C-alpha cells in the first residue's frame, strides 16, 4: 500500500503558544481517517498545516511522497461552514463549478463539459433540484453537501474535511458519510476533523487522537478504547479517571 500522508516532527504555534507539539504519523492510501480530540487540541490546525495553509515552526509534511505545494490540485479541502459568507451572490451549481477551477489553470474558463460534470457531482449528493438557488437559501446539511460536491468536482486523490457534520441534518450526514466511504473504497484517502465521539467508530476505519501532541494513531479498534481516549480527554474532565470516560 502506498503512503498517502507522512508527517514528521511537526511543531506549530500561534502567537508563541504551542498548538501542535512533535506530531508524527503516516497514513496509507485508501483510508477514511478521523481526527478526534478535545476542544483546542489542534485538530483544525493539523488539517491546515497538512495543506500548508498556516506556517509551521518545524517538521515535514509529504502528500503522496511530494511536498504539498506540488500536490495542491490533487487535494480537495472542505472548510468549516462558519468560514463561508452565505450571502455571497453565487448559485449552488456555480459553487460546485468552483471545484473544476484548480484543474483549469489561470485564464481558462469552465467549458460545457465542466458544467455537465459539476451537475453530475451535485446529483451525486442528491440536491441537483436546488442548483439555481442562492447558496444561503439551503439548509445547513444541504450547504455541506454542496461543498462535498465541489470537492468531488475537483477529482482529487485526497479529501480533507473540517467538521463536516456540524449543524447538519440526519439525511445529509448519512449522504455525506456514505459518499466518503465510497471514496475510501475506490482507494482515495479521506481525512475528517470530527468532534462527536459517539459516531467516530462507525464512520472511520482509522483515528488520529490528538491533544496538542499525538496521543495515538491507528485502526479504530486500537484507538477507540476507554484507556486511550482517557489520555486525551482526562484534562477536560478532571474529576474522571480514564476508565470512567463514557463512550
Amino acid at each position, binding site marked *: 500500500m502506498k503512503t498517502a500522508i507522512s508527517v514528521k516532527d511537526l511543531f506549530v504555534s500561534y502567537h508563541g503558544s504551542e498548538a501542535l507539539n512533535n506530531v508524527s504519523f503516516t497514513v496509507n492510501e485508501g483510508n477514511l481517517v478521523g481526527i478526534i480530540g478535545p476542544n483546542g487540541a489542534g485538530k483544525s490546525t493539523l488539517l491546515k498545516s497538512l495543506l500548508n495553509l498556516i506556517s509551521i515552526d518545524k517538521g515535514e509534511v509529504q502528500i503522496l511522497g511530494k511536498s504539498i505545494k506540488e500536490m495542491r490540485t490533487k487535494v480537495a479541502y472542505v472548510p468549516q461552514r462558519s468560514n463561508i459568507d452565505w450571502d455571497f*451572490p*453565487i448559485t449552488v451549481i456555480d*459553487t460546485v463549478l*468552483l471545484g473544476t477551477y*484548480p484543474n483549469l489553470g489561470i485564464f481558462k474558463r469552465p467549458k460545457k463539459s465542466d458544467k455537465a460534470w459539476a451537475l453530475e457531482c451535485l446529483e451525486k449528493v442528491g440536491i441537483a433540484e436546488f442548483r439555481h438557488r442562492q447558496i444561503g437559501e439551503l439548509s445547513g446539511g444541504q450547504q455541506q453537501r454542496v461543498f462535498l460536491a465541489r470537492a468531488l468536482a475537483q477529482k482529487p486523490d485526497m479529501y480533507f474535511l473540517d467538521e463536516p457534520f456540524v449543524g447538519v441534518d440526519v439525511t445529509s450526514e448519512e449522504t455525506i458519510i456514505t459518499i466518503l466511504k465510497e471514496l475510501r473504497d475506490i482507494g482515495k484517502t479521506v481525512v475528517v476533523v470530527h468532534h462527536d465521539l459517539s459516531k467516530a467508530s462507525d464512520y472511520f476505519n482509522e483515528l488520529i487522537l490528538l491533544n496538542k501532541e499525538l496521543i495515538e494513531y491507528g485502526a479504530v479498534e486500537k484507538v477507540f478504547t476507554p484507556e486511550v481516549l482517557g489520555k486525551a480527554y482526562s484534562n477536560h474532565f478532571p474529576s474522571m479517571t480514564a476508565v470512567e470516560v463514557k463512550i
Partner: protein
Amino acid sequence: MMNFIDALMQYGFLQKALITSIMVGIICGVIGCFIILRGMALMGDAISHAVLPGVAISYMLGINFFFGAVLTGVLTALGIGFISQNSRIKNDVSIGIMFTAAFASGIILITLMKSSTDLYHILFGNVLAVRPSEMWTTLFIGIFVLVSIYVFYKELLVSSFDSTMAAAYGLPTRVIHYFLMTLLTLVTVASLQTVGIILVVAMLITPASTAYLLTNRLWVMLYLSAGIGVLSSIIGLYLSFTYNLASGATIVLAATALFIVAFIFSPKQGLIWRWIRKFRKRESYAR
C-alpha cells in the same frame, strides 16, 4: 432636459465630462462589487484618501498625478497589511491609522504648494473642468481595470467567496489582495476629477450595494452595478450642469436615490417584500 442635450451637442467640455463620468461609473461599479463582497468598504475609503499626498507630490514635481497617486495608494495598502499582520492591531484600526496619516500629510503638502483651489477640486471633484489629458487617463485606466477583471474573473470570484479554498489549491491570495488594492487605487485616480477623493467611496459601494440587493449571481451583479454607476453619473452630471452644483455631490446623491429605490422595492431583498412575507407568515399561523 432639452437644454442639457443641446448643450451636450454644443460644448466640448460637457462631452468630455460625460465620457469621463460614464467611465467612472462603470469602473467604480465593477471594482466596487469586489470591494463590498470582500468586506473592504473601509479599505476603499482609506485608499481613496491615501492618494492625496501622491497627488500633491506629483503637482510639485510637475508629473502626471497618476504616478504619485498610485505610489502612495499602494504604499498605504502595504502599510495597513504590514501593521495588522505584525501586531495585535485589528485590520479596521490599522486602516484608520494609516489612511488618516496619509491624508493629513497630503493636506500639509498641498498647503505648502499654496494652491487651495486645486485642493478643493481634488477633494470634491469638478467634472465640468476635466481636461482632455485627464479624460484620456480615465479612459486608459478604465480599460486596464476592466481587462484585468475580465482576465482574472475566475480567480477574483473564488478568492472573494472562499479564500481558504483558493489558498488550498495554490492561488496567491495575498498577491490577489494587493492586485485588487492597486486596481482600487487606479480607480480612485480615475475618479478624482469626477467625484473627488472624499466621495469616491460612495461610487465604489453604493451602486454595488444596489446591485447586490437585486441579484444572486456575481456576473449579473457586475453588469448591474456598472449600469447603475453610469446612470448615477449621467443623472448627477445633468443636475450638476443644470443647477450649477458640485458634480461629485450630485452624482453620489443620484446613486443614493437608486439605492433607496432598490432597498424598498427589490423583488427578493426589498423592504416591501420582507413585510409581505412576514405578513403572510403571520396569516398562515393565525389560521
